[in-house]
């Protein structure tokens, strides 16, 4: 099954976020304005990138080991390939993407040269103010560091801003308070860090207050509402 969109509407941090969360195998195909690139996904990590002249060519090669053999790609050059065809393009917005899960077969030994969470952070650093505003849309948002987030950051190269922002995350401070505490003159840097850390699953949003039991509503009335809706 494929899912598609436009990079202007759904930029790279968000695509990578979906890939990371789904933890599946598949191919991300991006039709940039100058070339088409297939990004190979294994267990939610991008392990290879390959420019293709025809989209159909991607679907005819279902075995990744056979493909690598055919292309005569050595493992040590893969980071440079990802640099050329992914990292250097993270600020481009002219492109259509499609994400296809399943389909491609891997061996058990292929590894991701760059953790997907690192790619997400790199992509978030390239966001425009308007793009950042889509996700960090409210000054009152609060976050906590996720249990897995503490492990994830150990394998990443965080920027000084990202490190400082994580230090401020305590489930109480709002986005506005974190900006004020750290870089009051550079709020966008804080927001980009929050965007990246949130997309990478290192932090998550928490509700500021507890939900209140609905005032004036009894369980009996609620049951009646449920029964009524069931009978509609």
């Amino acid at each position, binding site marked *: *099954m494929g*899912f*598609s*969109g*436009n990079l202007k*509407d*759904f930029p790279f941090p*968000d695509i990578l*976020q*979906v890939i990371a*969360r*789904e933890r599946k195998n598949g191919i991300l195909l991006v039709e940039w304005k100058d070339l088409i690139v297939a990004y190979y996904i294994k267990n939610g990590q991008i392990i290879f990138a390959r420019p293709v002249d025809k989209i159909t060519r991607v679907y005819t090669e279902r075995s990744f080991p056979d493909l690598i053999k055919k292309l005569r790609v050595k493992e040590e050059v893969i980071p440079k390939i990802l640099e050329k065809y992914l990292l250097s393009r993270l600020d481009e917005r002219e492109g259509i993407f499609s994400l296809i899960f399943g389909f491609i077969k891997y061996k058990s030994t292929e590894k991701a040269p760059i953790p997907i969470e690192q790619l997400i952070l790199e992509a978030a650093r390239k966001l425009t103010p308007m793009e950042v505003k*889509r*996700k960090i*849309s*409210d000054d*009152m*948002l609060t976050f906590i560091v*996720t249990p897995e987030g503490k492990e994830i950051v150990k394998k990443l190269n965080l920027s000084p801003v990202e490190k400082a922002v994580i230090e401020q995350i305590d489930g109480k401070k709002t986005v506005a308070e974190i900006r004020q505490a750290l870089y009051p003159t550079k709020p966008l840097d804080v927001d980009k860090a929050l965007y990246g850390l*949130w*997309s990478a*699953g290192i932090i*998550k*949003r928490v*509700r*500021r*207050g*507890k*939900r*209140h*039991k*609905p*005032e*004036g*509503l009894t*369980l009996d*009335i*609620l049951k*009646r*509402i*449920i029964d*009524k*809706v*069931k009978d*509609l």
Partner: protein
Amino acid sequence: MFNSLASGQKQKKKIKILVSGPFAAGKTQFIKTISEIEPLTTERKTSAKNEKSVKNSTTVAMDFGKITIDDEHELYLFGTPGQSRFDFMWDILGKGALGIIILVDSTNPQTFHEARQIINFFESRYPVPMVVGANKQDLPDAWPPEMIKSALNLDAEDIPVVPVVATDKDSVKKALLTLLEEIYKEFG
């Protein structure tokens, strides 16, 4: 939560549920499908060029539909305008809501961000139970609910994402029941 409405000689208690979501997510249709009355709408012709290409009219203040529960209670479904330029209406309509259904257009990833903004807005101000309805699931290019959940960063949050076809009554009922079950949990 409750307001009394004059209805003939009886005062009925009004229970409010909000139906929110981005522009053209299907909010008006959702209410129309489940309401026992023809919904009251405040639609106007769309003015922005990019909106005109999607639909000709849009809600500018609110829609509302009604489900009579019993002699004393009525459930009101309030639909908010989708565009963020009308977010002052989100604030007005959010007050006293029992819960919120946020619809997204599953075929249009652009609306996922707008849905996230709406969730952020209400969670910061009116932390009531919410359910995201992944609408237009009958269309071939619809993203499945689990991927929309990932895209909205909801996998670590207690906000369910359910499939919806706003023109289908059973589908709308399921979404509404999911929200009511979330509200029920608050009594636990």
